[in-house]
């Protein structure tokens, strides 16, 4: 971890520029990710939020190079520590996977191979990237299991995944991801399949490990509670596009895009009457094959009439800077957006995040 190369301690370690992922299908081209850019420095955490189908998981798998190039067109740039992964060969990216960048997944039970012991899977992960014998790899695995908080790691290492609890399994996944000291950790819904109490433990573990290893973390989630808990920066995605990007403060206290407002309003609130606690966004996420002509969010947006006449129906909004480090993709005038946000989230501004 001491060999900090071009990324340095402050510059971005991972820099995603104009990333596009398209899947050609018989019904037409599915534009799952359409021109997404963001970057994360070491020791920082970026959260990508959005509904199912917003392209957040596809984005993370594109960074990891997990899309089959024969079935997916990935364009743009993914610059990891100075190296463009989109332009790199499959084998070059493969060698970075599990070493410089690692990923943990939503459901730890289905993400671990049911027929192999935890130890076997961990040892395998070590030996892909390190030229060590099995005993040494096993010792590393036990040490890492211990580090992620698994009791009796020297015994649990010989368990099969189904013999562990959900939280333990996710700890195993985290241990597996960290074995080769990655500088970038992508966590795709890491707590969604877990009990609430376990969720908090796992998030705490991620924070501790980040502090210890100075890892850049990209966490993908639809749970704004998780975002508030761990993120420094937030990317909001909708219909394969980045619609709002800002610090966690910007997103929670000064959101401007109506979709972000909708997400925040969809969180249950205890400070309101039961009927008003939930305020869901009307409608469904768009089909990624036939996106609406103008603003992708227009069909579900309740404020479009406040924008200049017809512009939401015909013109794709650009991502414009609204404040330092705060970008918004919306046709509404900035002051209108802020007024709406203030009205919708009146109480929330006083809440501590």
């Amino acid at each position, binding site marked *: 971890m001491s060999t900090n190369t071009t990324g340095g301690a402050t510059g971005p370690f991972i820099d995603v520029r104009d990333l596009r992922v398209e899947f050609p299908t018989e019904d037409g081209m599915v534009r799952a990710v359409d021109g997404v850019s963001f970057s994360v420095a070491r020791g920082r955490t970026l959260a990508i939020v959005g509904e199912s189908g917003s392209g957040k998981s596809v984005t993370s798998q594109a960074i*990891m190079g997990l899309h089959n190039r024969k079935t997916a067109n990935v364009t743009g740039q993914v610059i990891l520590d100075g190296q463009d992964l989109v332009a790199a060969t499959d084998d070059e990216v493969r060698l970075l996977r599990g070493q410089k960048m690692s990923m943990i997944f939503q459901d730890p039970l289905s993400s671990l191979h049911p*027929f*192999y012991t935890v130890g076997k899977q961990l040892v395998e992960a070590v030996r*892909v990237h390190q030229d060590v014998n099995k005993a040494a790899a096993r010792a590393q695995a036990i040490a890492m299991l211990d580090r992620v908080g698994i009791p009796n790691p020297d015994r649990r290492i010989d368990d099969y995944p*189904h013999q562990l609890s959900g939280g333990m399994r996710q700890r195993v996944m985290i241990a597996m991801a960290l074995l080769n000291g990655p500088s970038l950790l992508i966590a795709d819904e890491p707590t969604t399949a877990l009990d609430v109490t376990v969720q908090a433990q796992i998030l705490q573990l991620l924070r501790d490990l980040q502090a210890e290893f100075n890892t850049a973390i990209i966490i993908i989630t639809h749970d704004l509670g998780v975002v508030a808990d761990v993120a420094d920066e937030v990317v909001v995605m909708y219909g394969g596009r980045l619609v709002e990007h800002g610090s966690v403060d910007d997103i929670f206290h000064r959101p401007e895009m109506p979709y972000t407002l909708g997400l925040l309003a969809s969180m249950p609130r205890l400070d309101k009457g039961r009927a008003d606690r939930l305020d869901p966004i009307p409608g469904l996420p768009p089909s990624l094959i036939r996106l609406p002509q103008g603003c992708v969010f227009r069909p579900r947006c309740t404020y479009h009439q406040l924008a200049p006449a017809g512009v939401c129906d015909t013109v794709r909004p650009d991502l414009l800077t609204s404040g330092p480090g705060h970008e918004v993709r919306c046709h509404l005038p900035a002051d209108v957006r802020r007024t709406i946000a203030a009205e919708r989230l009146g109480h929330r501004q006083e809440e501590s995040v």
Partner: protein
Amino acid sequence: MTGYIVRRVLSMVLMLLLLTLVVFLLFSVLPTDPARLTCGKACTPEVVAANRHNLGLDLPVWEQYWVYLKGIFVGRTFGSGTATYSCDAPCLGYSFKRGEQVTVLIKEGFPATFWLAIGAFILWITSGVSLGIYSALRRGKWQDKLVMGVSLVGYSLPSFFIGLVLLFFVILKWQLLPYPDYVSPFENPLQFFQTMLLPWIVLAFLYAAFYMRLTRNQMLDTLGEDYIRTARAKGLRERIVIRRHGLRAGLTPIVTAAGLDLAGLLGGAIITERIYSLPGIGSLAVNSVVDADLPLTVGITLVTATFIIVANLIVDLLYAVIDPRVRLV
């Protein structure tokens, strides 16, 4: 584990007993009168009655069953006085039509059926599974479509059709192989192989068609699993992802299917055996039905069913060895 095995074996024995009961009762309610069948046209009621007594068919059904069951374990004798036929344990009855114990007849038919089944099994497992894997890895490409097309043909063509076509062209028309005449492989290996080659191909083609599809679907399901994505995320080579993670999980269910199919075949492959004149259990079963040789039919039914039940147990135990999630309690 041991407790589980003991329990499974006990329940298997119980099931086999139940099986003998059901089969025995089933055949005892048939309208055919076995005693009447024992003598030809010039039969008097007295002879029939005497034979009925000698065969023990004048006893109540439950008593007949008891004698039958006892025969399996300790043997029995038919007839009385000078005309007695002894039937050694395990006695499954005596075929008066053939003048031989049923057990002996089945034992005689077993080698041909066994070699047919084993040869075809090896052929269909190797070809079916490997083509299925290949097809899954080339999903959507022409290779996949070709393999699936062949599989569809195998599915659609009945074995008597392929069997007869091969027999006609390879043996009769082009005379590439001599006419099938079964011998033991230990006696004349060349003739054995010449005889068995076509039956193996016919039978294997039928099963391989099914296994191609089964393997392909299993592999595609497995390759879509989350743990395959994890294996890729570790940075493993694609080859290792497929071999170590994909095959291990994808082929496990094939073991179950293969075990049961093999056991089913050990009970005789009727059509293939008939076409190629193999003196196996399948041929024997058909002949016994045609001749209304009831004891033989009952005996073959029992043996065949026993194979399936035993194979079921073996496959279940084997599965627990391969899949650590299966807990034997």
